[in-house]
Structure formats: structure tokens, C-alpha cells
């Protein structure tokens, strides 16, 4: 990992999660109708932390689901490596719910497009709101996040790496030079 900068450290991470939880509650007026859906892989852990925070603040626990968008991707023909699929785990009914879709990094917007299609196949939610830890720009589709942890202007030669205790042993966000693709 060719690190250029540490953008969020452990303490900043906790504060960001806390703020996102508050913003979600504020915008939805503390509604009990919200459900959280984390996008595999790291979005799931961020969603879990936001859920825990919401429980602390409001003393209620929103339903929680996991979405795998692999089957909805648009890059099967152009990618070199075959993506691994895992199970979507959404056991509640999404109809009429206010869905908070949670991911780690918002970049081209293509994953979000796939996620929207995936959620729509499960039913007709009242709203879908997008919450991301980092927005790094360079959108290729008209997608905008409702809740953003941090906006980070990047060049396309850079990558944003979100590291989480659950997967990587630390909570931090780094800006790194993209590894040479050849």
C-alpha cells in the first residue's frame, strides 16, 4: 500500500459514524420506518456501527440487511477477474420502508446503480437514501449521496482505502497511489 495521506483516523472515524447516525435520524425525523442495508463487504460493518449508534441515541433498533450486488453488475464482460458472489440477507419486507443504503466509498456510482436495481427487485420501498463514508468524486452516473462522512477530492490515479477493525484490524481511511494495473 503506497500511502499518500491518512484522511480519517480512529477517533475521526467514531465521530463520523456518530454524525452520520444523527443526520439520518434528523432527516427522517426519528422515524421508526427506516431500515439499514449494508452493501458487501465493508458497507455491512459501517451499517452495523450506524445501527448501534442509532440504538444508543433513540433506544430503538432499525431492521438490518445485507446486500450483495454482484449479480447486478454491468462489468462482467470487461473485468479480468470473475467476481465472487455471496448471499443477500434481507429477511424483512422492504415495501413502504425508508431504506438507508450504506457503503464505504462512492466513486463511479455504478455499484449504487446495481444496488438500486437489486433493492427494487425485492419490493417497492417508500424511499431509498444513500449513505457513504467517503465520496471521492468521478461519477459516471447521475448518483448523489444523501449522507456523506467525508468528501475527498481525488485524482483517478489515486485510491481510497477504507480499513475497518472487523476486516483489517484498524479503523482508518487512507489515500493511496493506485497500484500499477499492468
Amino acid at each position, binding site marked *: 500500500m503506497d500511502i499518500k495521506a491518512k484522511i480519517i483516523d480512529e477517533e475521526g472515524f467514531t465521530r463520523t459514524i456518530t454524525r452520520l447516525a444523527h443526520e439520518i435520524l434528523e432527516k427522517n425525523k426519528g422515524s421508526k420506518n427506516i431500515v439499514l442495508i449494508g452493501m458487501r463487504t465493508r458497507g455491512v460493518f459501517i451499517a452495523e456501527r450506524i445501527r448501534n449508534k442509532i440504538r444508543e441515541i433513540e433506544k430503538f433498533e432499525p431492521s438490518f440487511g445485507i446486500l*450483495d450486488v*454482484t*449479480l*447486478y*453488475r454491468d462489468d*462482467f464482460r470487461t*473485468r*479480468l*477477474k*470473475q*467476481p*465472487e*458472489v*455471496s*448471499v*443477500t*440477507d434481507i429477511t424483512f419486507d422492504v415495501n413502504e420502508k425508508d431504506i438507508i443504503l450504506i457503503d464505504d466509498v462512492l466513486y463511479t456510482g455504478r455499484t449504487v446503480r446495481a444496488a438500486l*436495481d437489486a433493492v427494487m*427487485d*425485492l*419490493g417497492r420501498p417508500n424511499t431509498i437514501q444513500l449513505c457513504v463514508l467517503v465520496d471521492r468524486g468521478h461519477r459516471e452516473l447521475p448518483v448523489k449521496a444523501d449522507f456523506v462522512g467525508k468528501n475527498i477530492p481525488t485524482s483517478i490515479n489515486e485510491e481510497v482505502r477504507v480499513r475497518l477493525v472487523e476486516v483489517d484490524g484498524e479503523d482508518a481511511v487512507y489515500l493511496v497511489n493506485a497500484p500499477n494495473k499492468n
Partner: protein
Amino acid sequence: MSLSSRHLLGLYGVPREDIQLILDTATTFREVLERPIKKVPTLQGKTIVNLFYENSTRTRISFELAQKRLSADTINFSTSSSSTKKGETFKDTVRNIEAMKVDMIVVRHQSAGVPQYLTKISKANIINAGDGLHEHPTQGLLDMYSIREKLGRLEGLKVCIVGDVSHSRVALSNIFGLKSMGAKVSVCGPATMIPTGIESLGIKVYHNINEAIEKHDVLNVLRIQLERNAGVKIPSLREYHQYFGITTERIEKYNKDILILHPGPINRGVELSSEVADGPYQVILDQVTNGVAIRMAVLYLLGTMHN
């Protein structure tokens, strides 16, 4: 992770990691099948031909459903309504179909080796849906998936294949697949139905069904295939049922923990009593549901592979 081959011709020689990957991927599709909209856009724009030279309901419908649920375009070909009747050779038929630009061919044929031959004359991904007395790999995979779903593992399990093993492609696919997943496989049936020398595959042979029930975790019970001349190997269906039929009495006396699989269609009162076929020990209809998920997994893994 990708499969190591771009075709699925049989389970013989397929590495354990590949089987594991197919079974794990099928779990994802099992979830898709429980959704209100049982369809994902994954194989959009891919064209798949189902080339069936032999009768089939279950397998053909299962493949077709799997393809539709992955949003592929499918064409069904069966010999009864095709130019094969007009004398066109197999190779010409395939070349013509290929000229229409297809990505995958699912083939069932009465002759062993046809899928293998297809890989030489076509650029498409080939999936074997049963070739002669050779293999029926997706059936083997769905049997393994059903066992794993019910018992949580395959490694170390004792599985016995019961019935007309010598006339069964399902038996061969099960044997190869289960063995590479670390299960212990044996066969049970009248001597006329067990191929000589099968022990050389490292398989134990039983001729007493009670003993087979007692000593195994799973019985995969094959259909007595009268259309394949099974009648000359046994005196009568009634006698077969008496000596080898699976009945509730036998299960309750010898092993209440047994799991019964059957690839269908069932001859009720022959290889299984009606009571067993509908009873608590079997997973026959789960096998059918799992079959769609397994076929989706195979189509997905082959169809999205980079050639």
C-alpha cells in the same frame, strides 16, 4: 475465484475447489429463488441453446428456468421437431446453430461423449445435461448440495447408491463428485445391476439393502429404468421391491437417521414405497428446487468467465 474449465462435461477429474465453488455459489441463487422477483440481470445478452436429443422433463425445465432467472435468451431444441428428422447430421445441426451466434450449449444425448465432441466443433461453453451411460454432472452437484444442506457437510459422510448402477449416469457423477469431496461412497443392488470391477474405483459393494441402510448416512436411490432394459436384470418389479425396495419398516428397523435422495421420476412401490417417497426421511422435492440453484450457479460461473 473461477472454475478451472470453461465446460462442464462431467465430475470426473473436477478439482475439489471447483465443486466447492459451484456449491457455494448455488447458495446465493437459492436465496434469489426465495425472492418475490426471482430474476437477476446477470446473463443479459447471452444466448443459450438447450440441445435435447433425449426425453427429459425435470432437467430441461430446470435448465430453462435457471437460464430465464439469469435473464439469458434461451432456445429449446428437441429432436422430435427438428431437421434431425430430415436426416441432418449432428455436426451440421450444431454448426448451423453456432452460426446463429450462441454463447452456451446445454446438451443431452443418448450417446456418451457427445458433450466432449461438441467442445471440438463449437466455440460455445458446453454443459452436459446427461450423455448416455456416462455422466450427468448437474444432477451429481445438486445431490451433493442437497446432502450438504441437510447434513451440513460432505467430508467423511457414508453415501450408498442403490439400484441399477450399471445403467446410471447419475451414479457415476455422484461417485466422482462425492469422492473428490471426501465422502465414502458405496453401491448396493442385485449383482446383475452392479458393474464388475467397480471396486477398482475404491467403492464398497453391498447386496443386502438392510445392511446398506444400517451402515450409511445417505442413500441415493436410483430409478429402475425399464426403458433401458432393466427388466432383463431382475425377475420382476415386485421381487425387486421385496429385496431392495426402501420401506418405512426397513428404515425404522435399521437406521432412523438415514437421508433418502432420489433423482426422479419415482417408480412408486418399486425402488421406494409410496410412504417413504412422501415421508420424513426424504428430500426429493428439495433436490428439484436445489437443481435450479445449482444450474444457475454453473451457468453463472461459466457464462461470466473470461475466455
